[in-house]
Structure formats: C-alpha cells, structure tokens
C-alpha cells in the first residue's frame, strides 16, 4: 500500500475536480451518491440513573475516505459492471435457440393462437443481435434512434478498466496511515 503526499480530503477534491472537467453530469451523479450519507447507531449513556444506555439511529455524512470508496464503487458500476451485464446477456442469449414461426402459420393468423404454434428452432450457440428500445411505444416525440444495439466490449478492455479502478483504490486507501 503506498504512502501518500496527500490526504483523503485532497484525494476526494482531486477526483471530483477531474470528474467535473470531464463530464459534469457524471460528477453530479457521483456527488449525489456521496451525499446520501449513512446511518450510524449512537449510544448515549444514561443520565438519570437508568441502567440501560439509550441507543438510537443517526444519519451522518460519509467520512472523506468512505466517500472515496462510494465514488469508486459508482465509477466501477458504470465502467465495469455495465459492460459485464451486456457480456452476460449476450452469452446467455447466444446459448438459446431462436424460434422461427412455420410459414403456413404466419400466413394464416400472424402466428398468434392460444395453441402453441409450430416453430423451427435454430441458431442455438450462435451470437444474437440484441437491441434495447430507446423510443417507447407511448412516446410522443419519435425523433432520434428507435433502438440501440447492445454490443459486447472486448474482455481485455473490461479487465484493463477493472485494473485501473483497483490501482486507483490503492492510491486512495488511507487505512493504515
């Protein structure tokens, strides 16, 4: 664990300043996550001779060190977890088969019936095209893209970004100083 020429407060200020310079909206999100604070249990010794101390919950701000952890957890969620979600869904959809409605049923009734329709099953084990709808069906303004493809990121890129997060965690770890 490295020794530091800076303290937790300076580290947090540096991180937030760099974030704001890069993307103000991201900085605002991270600040919101920090400003949620935390619950602690406070104990107050008995004042009037009662044997039991009073224990109560209190909402307090994070310490600077805790705030750094919250900020890095949030960045990890955006930069590492999200690409991993896409990778996971792509893997699980690839292992599924695709049902192709039988031609005669499509012609007869659009493939809709209370009885199971006949489908040809194919493509199990093949990568599938996956999209997320951007314009919902009830949205009035239909400008812009209707859907967005979910594409896997390279595993090496995800691993590299995870390593950069770990490096940064080491640089803001003040636990033994």
């Amino acid at each position, binding site marked *: 664990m*490295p*020794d*530091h*020429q*800076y303290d937790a407060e300076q580290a947090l200020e*540096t*991180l937030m300043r*760099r*974030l704001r310079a*890069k*993307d103000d909206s*991201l900085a605002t*999100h*991270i600040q919101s*996550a920090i400003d949620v604070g935390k619950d602690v249990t406070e104990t107050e010794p008995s004042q009037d001779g009662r044997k039991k101390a009073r224990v109560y919950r209190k909402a307090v701000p994070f310490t600077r060190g805790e705030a750094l952890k*919250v900020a890095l957890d*949030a*960045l*990890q*969620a*955006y*930069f590492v*977890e*999200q690409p*991993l*979600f*896409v990778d*996971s*869904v792509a893997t*699980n*959809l690839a*292992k*599924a*088969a*695709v*049902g*192709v409605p039988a031609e005669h049923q499509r012609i007869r009734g*659009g*493939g*809709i019936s*209370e*009885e199971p329709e006949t*489908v040809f*099953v194919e493509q199990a084990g093949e990568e*599938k095209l*996956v999209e*997320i*709808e*951007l314009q919902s*069906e009830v*949205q009035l303004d239909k400008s812009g893209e*209707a*859907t*967005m493809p979910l594409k896997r990121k390279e595993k090496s*890129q*995800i691993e590299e*970004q995870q390593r950069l*997060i770990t*490096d940064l965690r080491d*640089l803001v770890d003040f636990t033994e100083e």
Partner: protein
Amino acid sequence: MATIEDLENAIDALLNHPLGVGQYQLVQRVGDKAYEAYVFGLCLRAVRELGVTPVLRGITGTPTPFIFRGAPGQIHSRTRNYGYAEFTLKGHEFEIHAGVEFRGTSGMTHELDVCIMRAADARACRNPQTLDDPQAASLVGGWECKFYAGSLQKGLGRAFVGLIDDMGSNVRLNGLCSNSSHPQLSDYFQPQRRPFPHFRLTPLEPSNEDIFVNQFKGELKKMTAA
C-alpha cells in the same frame, strides 16, 4: 510515496479509457434496461441448467434482432418485434418476459421488469380475439431490477412489496435485483413472503448469480414435479 500527480494520472487513465466517460454516456441512454436484460439472461441460464434449451421468440416473428422494451408495455403490443423466451419443462409450458404489464388482483396494472408466466395464459393475452393484460394468477415469478451507481433507495423496496402483494398467492418466486444494496432493505425483506433481496447481483459476484439461478431452478423443479 504516491504524489498528487500520480493520483491525477490514475484518475485520467480511468476516465479517458474507452470504457470511461464514453461508457457512462452510453449507460445514460439505456438506463436500467441493460440490467433488466442481464437478469433476463440469468433466467435463460437457469432454464438451460434445468436441461432445457430456451427458445427466443418475437411478438411479430423471428426475433432478429431480439428487442428489449424501453418502457413498460402490454404483452400483446406489436409496435416492435419485442422479444421473449419460451420453454417446456416436464410438459409445463412457460414464457419469460421483460417489461410486461400485469393486472393485479385489485385491477390495477403493474409492470414487472422480468417475469416468468404460464405460456397458455400469455398466448391467450396475445390472441387478437381476446387481447388483454395477463392476470395476476398467470404469474409464476417476478423480479424488480434496479441498476444503481450508489445506494439503493428504500422506497423501491416498499413499492415492490406492495406490487407483489397485489399479485395474489400464485407467485412462487420474486425478488428485488440490484447491483447495489441497502442494509435496511435487507432487513425489511427478511419476513417470510417478502421479496428476496438479490443484492449485489452482478457478474462481479458470481456466487450471488448462483443464488438467483438456483432459486429459479429449485422452484421450477418443485412446480413441475407432480
């Protein structure tokens, strides 16, 4: 000795990476939907581990591409070729959907981010002669899915408990899935019949994925054993 310059360089390397700020901007466009898709994928994995290959379907035809809804919608909506999955286990037919609305026992409609339901009921709701929202009784399992880059909000848990309460007593599986967590919500979900807190459900925590998948498999096995 780490200097402030080392720190600045490490922050810049993280933010300037191809999966840095640009990735955040991508995430902003799809919101929770990529997380819902991830949980949908875990359901497919559970089906596969039961020895069955799930089949991807589209509401209007072959699902190429497979489209996840961007907002709550009706199961019979043909606005786009929305995707779902179907499978048969020991003669019982099921469908897995994302972002579909159900009619609760009160008559109020509720969106389930990811759900598993009886396939015959789903087909009936899609039949042009009987287009309708699925009834609560057709629901086998439902999950609320929340991607959070911070602590979960308590209100989400309260709202989901109310939703599940309105879905009647046929629901065998339910839970609040999130990549994040909340200590008080974990306690709130402790009583029996409350949703299961699938917190820190993320590829970074494979053991939590296993819990989700094993619950799904266990309940489906029990349900189809008779």
